[in-house]
């Protein structure tokens, strides 16, 4: 499809795609903000949740933080390569980022399997409800990001639409930032 002229204009000086991603993130901030704000209120009002939080495994959470930080690092390297016009290198870095996403999801599913099989299900109590809901919405974002990155990496390998490498990168870093806050909220604070 031919691109409309409208898409090529940039009255603000921020490229259209990047502006849209920033707006998307602003709307994501309020979605996660609403959920985590509610969690924080309940957590501060229910000291007994500390006993439930004690069950979560900080080391698994830390490993996942490490995985996501690393994937963020490769995403920014992909952006750097795309800026230099090196589509193949950008694509390779993106595939590494996707690998990070998959590793994150695999660790997560083992963690959840262990917890669910020990009876800590989403209905067990308020803490676990928030735990699975918040991490689940975050994981949905990880999955969506990995799929989008796959498409962009395939195009970038052919040298097409390189600016999209940066756009998906910004989104990916946001997913990382959400986890940076989920980690202390769900794992460290006991």
């Amino acid at each position, binding site marked *: 499809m031919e*691109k409309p002229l409208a*898409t*090529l204009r*940039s009255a603000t*000086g*921020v*490229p*259209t*795609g990047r*502006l849209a991603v920033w*707006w998307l*993130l*602003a*709307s994501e*901030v*309020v979605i996660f*903000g*609403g959920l985590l*704000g*509610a969690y924080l*209120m*309940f957590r501060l*009002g*229910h000291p*007994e949740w500390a*006993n*439930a939080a*004690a*069950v979560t495994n*900080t*080391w698994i959470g*830390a490993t996942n*933080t*490490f995985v996501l*930080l690393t994937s963020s*690092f490769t*995403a*920014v390297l992909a952006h750097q390569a*795309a*800026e230099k016009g090196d589509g193949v290198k950008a694509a390779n870095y993106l595939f590494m980022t996707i690998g990070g996403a998959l590793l994150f999801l695999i660790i997560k599913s083992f963690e959840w399997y262990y917890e669910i*099989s*020990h*009876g800590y*299900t989403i*209905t*067990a*109590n308020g803490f676990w409800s928030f735990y699975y809901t918040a991490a689940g919405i975050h994981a949905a974002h990880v999955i969506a990001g990995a799929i989008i990155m796959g498409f962009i990496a395939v195009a970038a390998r052919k040298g097409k639409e390189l*600016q*999209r490498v940066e*756009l998906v*990168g910004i989104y990916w*870093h946001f997913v*990382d*930032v959400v986890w*940076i806050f989920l*980690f*202390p909220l769900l794992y*460290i*604070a*006991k």
Partner: protein
Amino acid sequence: MSEHTEHPTTATGQDAHDGEHHTNYFKIYVTLLVLLVISILGPEIGILWVTLVTAFGIAFVKAYLVIQNFMHLRPEKVIVKWMLASSLLLMGIYFFGVAPDVMKHEGRNWVNMAAMAVVERGIPLDGEHAEEDEHADDGESPGEGEEAAVVAETPFNAAQAYGTVCASCHGAAGGGDGPAGASTTPPPADFTSADFWAATNDERMFQVIKNGGASQGLSPMMAGWGVLYDDDDIRQIIEHLKTFRP
């Protein structure tokens, strides 16, 4: 569906960052990892304020580093910063508007007794529990899992169902004298009256319970419960009603 390269202002979309490329991404990455290690080790000390600072203070520092250096917010137009700042500010308003009702359990002229009871009941600290495998095998939930188990697995109990959904109108003893029935016209059926049983049969009762009173030309206030109970459950309820029969 994004910028074409032939357009001068948008070019590849990275023009705005030219000259900003000297950020050493690797250095930032290493810094982030060091901060991660500190945030894990901090709480191990066990002092509350150290935990708070290392866990949440460092989260903010890490987020700041990622946003400024990886997402390149630093060289971005000021309007983008305003957008993000206002969405964060709104979350602050939301928190302070809601917290007095939800976070606190009592206030001027009200107490949240249910929340207090939940705090009081507490959650058993079963760190070892999680290690024990026999509980995992029989699928039973430890501690607060009980309610979940009730929702999912309890076999149907007609007497209990009668108590929860029927008794408020038909009365605990089936006399049609439950509190909610007092204001309905016509009044709820009285299962202790012989006339009631003379005028009905199993099939009719089944239809009324499943599809509501209106389906048999009776009071529309008798709701249909087919959504909640399957046919077997309803037959069990009818059997339970027969225990009221004079």
